[in-house]
């Protein structure tokens, strides 16, 4: 039971470059955590504001490693029959019906109730064998031959009981099915858990994971991200745009623009063939990165000074 692709995680710089090749610019902190996670064989709990690329990190990891991405979107009420495994009840019922006729053959020659029972006992548990097991994402991730990236998205939305199911899989990479026994991973998957911090995760869960907090990127990193995600953007526009977004984040908004929204905005401006920012252009495209009426009002009030500041610097 080894984790494959370890060679792709040999150095921190290598990871940074590799991820960038897949279109994800990661900070040194992220690369270090990935490096540790692969060598210590630990899951990563990723936290941070919405839209800084938490989910994207998992996706890119699967792309970089060339292994399938198995994603489980968590929600309130998610339970083990949807996340871990389920018995194929229909198949079981169907088989009992079909096998009813076979029962006479099996019991042929047996005398009395006791000996019939003994004979039946030889066939016990056939209906609770791996053939009738329906693997759900968590189990599926363990069964992937060549390894997998398991992404548990928004794990904070799930119930507290659900965390308990996760504990076994996170620490030992195995699942216990009462009727069958323990199923261990054929090769350990790379596990990401993302959380928007709507509630505090339990201590037990945190203990089993490495913790990564992704904040909003600094201007330098954000410019790099824009450059990678929106190829062909002019350097001037990219610098002004990032400066403006960084400025907007300083304001007291309902929802600060995220990185993905910066990228969206950059793409929008590219479509409009803009080569530099100006207040009118910003006003027309504000709604690509501000999603609340109140926020738009706040920014519009200061639009001229902010735009001027962003434009003057570059």
């Amino acid at each position: 039971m080894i984790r494959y692709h370890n060679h792709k995680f040999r150095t921190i710089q290598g990871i940074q470059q590799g991820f960038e090749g897949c279109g994800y610019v990661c900070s040194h902190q992220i690369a270090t955590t990935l490096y540790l996670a692969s060598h210590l064989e630990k899951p990563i709990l990723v936290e941070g504001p919405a839209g800084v690329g938490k989910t994207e990190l998992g996706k890119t990891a699967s792309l970089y490693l060339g292994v399938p991405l198995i994603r489980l979107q968590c929600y309130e009420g998610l339970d083990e029959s949807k996340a871990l495994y389920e018995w194929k009840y229909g198949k079981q019922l169907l088989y009992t019906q079909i096998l009813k006729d076979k029962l006479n053959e099996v019991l042929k020659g047996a005398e009395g109730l006791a000996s019939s029972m003994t004979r039946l006992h030889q066939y016990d548990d056939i209906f609770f064998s791996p053939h009738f097991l329906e693997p759900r994402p968590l189990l599926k991730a363990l069964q992937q031959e060549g390894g997998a990236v398991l992404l548990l998205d928004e794990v904070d939305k799930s119930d507290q009981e659900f965390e308990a199911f996760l504990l076994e899989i996170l620490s030992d990479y195995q699942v216990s099915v009462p009727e069958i026994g323990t199923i261990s991973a054929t090769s350990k998957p790379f596990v990401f858990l993302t959380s928007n911090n709507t509630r505090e995760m339990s201590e037990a869960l945190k203990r089993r994971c490495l913790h990564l907090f992704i904040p909003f990127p600094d201007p330098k990193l954000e410019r790099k991200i824009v450059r990678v995600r929106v190829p062909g953007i002019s350097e001037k526009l990219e610098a002004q745009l990032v400066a403006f977004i960084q400025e907007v984040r300083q304001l007291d908004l309902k929802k600060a623009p995220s990185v993905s929204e910066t990228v969206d905005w950059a793409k929008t401006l590219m479509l409009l063939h803009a080569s530099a920012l100006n207040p009118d252009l910003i006003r027309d495209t504000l709604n690509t990165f501000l999603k609340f009426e109140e926020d738009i009002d706040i920014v519009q009030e200061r639009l001229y000074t902010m735009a001027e500041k962003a434009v003057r610097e570059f």
Partner: protein
Amino acid sequence: MEEVLHNLMRALRGSGVRISVSETMDALEAVKLVGYGKRQVLREALGATLAKSQYEKKLFETCFNRYFSRDSLSDEEEAPSPPPEVEYDSEDADLSQMLLSGDNAGLSMAMRAAARQVEITGIWFFTQKSLYVHRILEAMGLEGLEGDIKRLSQGMTAHSQEKAGVLREARDRLAEHVRDFVEQQYTLFAGAATEEMMEKYLRNMRLSNLEERDFHRMRLIIQKMVKRLNDIYSRRKKRSRRGLLDVKRTIRQNLTYDGLLFEPQWKCKKVDRPDIMVLCDVSRSVQAVARFMLLFLYSLNEAVARISSFIFCSNLVEVSHVFDGYEVEEVLVRLQRGIGLGVQLGRTDYGQAFQDFKEQGLDRVGNKTTVIILGDARNNYGDPETGILRLIYERSRRLIWLNPEPSSFWGTGDSEMAAYRAHCSLARECSTVNHLERVVDFLLKTGGY
């Protein structure tokens, strides 16, 4: 090197980062992987394995920077090497030799070794600083150095006099460095201990003695408490809401249908939600405590869904609506001054308060309701209206009286507690946060409400 990490973890624990044993082991593994070579990588690796929330990350950053700050002794420019003409010889003590040769690295090492020997990590109070400075200097061999100085200054030659002067200067400089070092260690290790101690201390302190400046800290403690209780409570509620197929019962029930699963049976638990009514005294006699009682009430309002709150002094009014949408400070001020609420802050009149409650709230008291009364039962010799209290007691599931006075004072003077007590399911003294916590625990425990 492991010692270094363990001490860092001690400092981290002290400043409030929770670190378990398994996390310690992860950190050691991680450090083995990345090594001590690069500061940034080390910081990131330790941060990923030890600090598990945004808040802890912040604590970690400050702690890490403080812990691995350069100590002043190994800085070249700060400690000028002594004049070269003063040579040391073999009869000098080790410490003197090191000082004379300007072996700053050696001195720094010796200082840290001495610090370990005297267990500087145990420092708790600022009053211990000079003690530790002295102990470290002694462990470094101050005695030998003093001996050298004394011997040399008694010496007749100009050379020995000069050497004694140089040594004396070096000794003072060393003491200065050690003092800085101890100062730094103090901020690192004592901060934590003090924090812990403050919390323990506040928990056991009488609520009426608490001062305004402790208020913020107190609020955090209460919030922590309520949050914990709420975690337990909300989990119970959710579990009971969900229905799962009860296989055993289904099979048993359907035996009559020839084993066909005709009528599925569901697992479910009864929803048993606490329904709480709180009556809080805000009169002058309990003024100091009332602030904290109200604070508690506020926190409870955030945690428990169904709660009605009343405050009383000369009369009683319902204030449940005040809690929604206001900040805690504002609510407390409004409640205490009774701004716009119609509460008269004259003489405390429990009889009137109970009568008002009978009119306004008694029909809402059912067999699931827990009624909590916060007050000292000092009725200014008025009519106690024990009958109404008895009525409330009979209709409610439970009547809890929390009295800030110790039970030996109950029934003395104008206190009606002795009479009221007979009609309470539970009457407790409640003057510290620990008391409060015990009561809430009891309240939210299964079957407790």
